[in-house]
């Protein structure tokens, strides 16, 4: 947008400025409506689910009196819409309520578990992109060659292999037998509580503290789950890259470029790849978002205290405040990533300006 503005002439500045304002306002309204809808649907699902949140708090043995008392304390005797109204008011004040189960503020819980997931998903996506993109490009350029076949098999395995199995096998081989990586959990016991929590991401915190031992240990723990997530994301990204590239490589402007005698490298990376960047960004952003909320099984196997397992545990225990809080955060991430990729479209795709 900054680029667009700087190119504007003085005569057009005001309308363009207004257009930008309008666009921002539109985006904000659409974000607000999306979030409101998301919260409403989740809230209603939470209320109609055949799970009893009161029982989750009082436990199996509770007498009816204890049950009734907690039922009222939780405000469940009020109409659902009124309950939603109160909830909305609290969320707008940044309060997701208390976890029904562990009686801590949900926002505090999310602050604790989100960095673990963010760290894992970021590294996973990084691995996925670093391998997936070149693999996809090469597979497209040398279509039908051995590298294309390998890329296809690797992606197919990535799509079809249950992550649960892959995770356990990875643990067994690289941790159990070879001892090359750290085990489940984020750190060895000996390193826990050695660095101050600043961001909650241990790799970052240990770097900030300049503690290389902790960094190495944390890295040895995160690399396996991140590689496994990265493998899945790589399978997706490489297939998408390949098909985007194939589309471009058969386009007339590529043929023209080749006829003009441009070096092949330039044709592939500057012309063809340059044109798929935008689509690729969307793919990567989606893949990243998936890893942020969809890494439940990986988190379970690797005893990784992240957002995915937090929401799942909450769901199974009928802790609706925690489920709602988690859902709002995940929803917000999706929305933000969408806005982010829209923004990149604006920058990279001249047609979107």
């Amino acid at each position, binding site marked *: 947008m900054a680029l667009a503005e700087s190119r504007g002439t003085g005569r057009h500045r005001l309308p363009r400025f207004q257009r930008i304002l309008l666009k921002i306002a539109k985006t904000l309204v659409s974000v607000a409506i999306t979030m409101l809808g998301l919260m409403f649907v989740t809230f209603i699902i939470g209320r109609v689910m*055949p*799970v*009893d949140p009161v*029982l989750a*708090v*009082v*436990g199996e*043995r*509770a007498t*009816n*009196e*204890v049950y009734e*008392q907690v039922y009222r304390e939780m405000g469940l005797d009020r109409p659902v819409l009124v309950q939603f109204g109160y909830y909305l008011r609290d969320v707008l004040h940044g309060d997701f309520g208390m*976890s029904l189960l*562990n*009686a*801590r503020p949900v926002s505090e*819980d999310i602050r604790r578990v989100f960095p673990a997931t963010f760290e894992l998903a970021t590294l996973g996506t*990084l*691995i996925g992109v*670093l*391998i997936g993109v*070149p693999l996809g490009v*090469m597979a497209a350029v040398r279509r039908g060659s051995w590298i294309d076949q390998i890329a296809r098999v690797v992606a197919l395995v990535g799509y079809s292999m249950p992550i649960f199995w892959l995770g*356990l096998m990875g*643990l*067994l081989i*690289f*941790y*159990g037998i070879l*001892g*090359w*990586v*750290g*085990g*489940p*959990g984020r750190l*060895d*016991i000996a390193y*826990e509580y050695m660095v101050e929590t600043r961001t909650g991401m241990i790799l970052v915190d240990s770097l900030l503290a300049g503690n290389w*031992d902790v960094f*190495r*240990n944390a*890295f*040895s*723990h995160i*690399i*396996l789950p*991140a*590689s496994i997530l990265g493998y899945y994301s790589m399978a997706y990204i490489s297939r998408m890259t390949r098909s985007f590239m194939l589309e471009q490589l058969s386009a007339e402007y590529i043929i023209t470029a080749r006829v003009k005698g441009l070096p092949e*490298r330039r044709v592939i*990376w500057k012309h063809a790849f340059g044109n798929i960047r935008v689509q690729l960004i969307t793919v990567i952003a989606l893949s990243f978002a998936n890893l942020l909320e969809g890494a439940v099984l990986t988190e*379970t*196997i*690797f*005893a990784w*205290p992240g957002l995915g*397992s937090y929401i799942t*545990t909450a769901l199974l*225990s009928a802790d609706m405040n925690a489920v709602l809080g988690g859902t709002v955060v995940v929803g917000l991430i999706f929305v933000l990533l969408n806005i982010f990729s829209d923004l990149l479209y604006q920058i990279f795709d001249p047609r979107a300006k």
Partner: protein
Amino acid sequence: MSFLKNITTAAAMALMVGLVPAPGTAETPTDVLVIANRIDDITTLDPAESFEFAGSDVSRNIYSKLVNFDPMNLDAGYQPELAASWDVSEDGKTITFTMKEGLKFASGNPIRAEDAAWSLQRAVKLNKTPSFILTQFGFTPENVEQMIRADGNKVIITTDKQYATSFVLNCLTATIGGILDKEVVMQHEVDGDMGNAWLKTNSAGSGPYKLVTWKPNETVVLETNPNWWGPEPAMKRVIVRHVAESATQRLLLERGDIDVARNLNPQDVAGLEGAPGIAIDSELRGRIMYIAVNQKHPILSKPEVRQAIKYLIDYQGMQDSFLKGQYVIHQNFLPATYLGAVDENPFSLDIEKAKELLAQAGVGPFEIEAGVREAQERLEIAQSLQNTFAQAGITLKLTVGTGKQILGRYRARDLDMYIGAWGPDYPDPHTNAGTFAYNPDNRDEAKLTGLLAWRNAWDTDGLTPKVEAAVIEKDRDLRAQMYRDIQAEFRAKSPFGIMFQRIEQTGRRDNVQNLSLGGAITAVSYWPVTK
């Protein structure tokens, strides 16, 4: 292609760095005990409220009680802990405890009779789920200050009527009997909650350990309490890590990154047998696995049908296959090792006998809905039952759901059949007799949802007064006999098919010694552990 080359090299480098051997694994520090356990059931650590397995494990190590169990001699029953001795009044209604002198809380505050009385009063006043363990003696938030009071270094407890002294004392060994540091707790009181919110995540006790931190679904860390009066525990720190997967626990144990794995499934236990440096312990726990049929159902309420279902369970087959090593056949509601427990297991899979009983009842093929929780072993039990019931013409329609889903319907008397488990709340026979065979008001409006007999709409066929009589019997032998008689009648009449008692299999590094899980009567004890 240099760009491509650079990227590929970078990716390869990233992987290489990742595959550098991990620094120093293989052994945990000698004075730290590291345990893998499922701890996602902990909802609070306030002893007046805590009622889950993993929570009891923490509580037992951070709170002392008036009387408690010696982990190295559980069979001896309750022993003096904060109380030096006790006297029972002639009418049997008042127990006077004399406190030990000179003991301190972790905070350094002296442990007074006032703290003990206040802790018990508080549990009654807060009226949280486990409060029934105390309120069954007639304590109410209104009268508890008169019924439980401190006088000098004595705590005087007066019950509404005479109960077996052993019953009262056994109840005081439950988690809710944990004695709190009143001064510390009240400093954290908010809106008259008697420190409840603060105690959910903090400790104020006098046990061998104190709480360092509890991160839900992540870790519990304990460290030794310098003011504990006993010999200093060899394990200065205890770290319990939440590891949900059995296979993951096994790997961690094999690698030596943990000392104890608490949730190994039969396959992983079998896989660990004979592994170097690893030992497997089996300990009988209190949990009972049972099925029950709703007496509101016109067919299931026939006495012959109730008996027939007990012959439609493949006890031996299940014990020897998917429950191997984890459950043992047990057909009585009192767990083995409890006062009055019996080991008579008269039922076995006998399709012909069941068909005969069904014919006597004049019942043809029928379908019922059975609720079962989404847990591996329970689903397998349900499938086995589905198979054997079908052989006698009973179609089991399984409704599978989360614990809370199924439980909600069970408590609302809404299931034809329930397949589930029950763990004792305190180490006295009344804990199970008072729920399986006791139902003073069978009407729907009574809503005695805590009682299993009520949930199945069973009026107990005359067992209720017998349970009431047993709980006030002072003679121990006579009391034990009363429970044996109640269980014999229960086997013959009840709509419950009790099937198995739990065995907990724990994997540990073989240098870990003296780890007591607490048997069927209490929770785990870390303080005697050595490595």
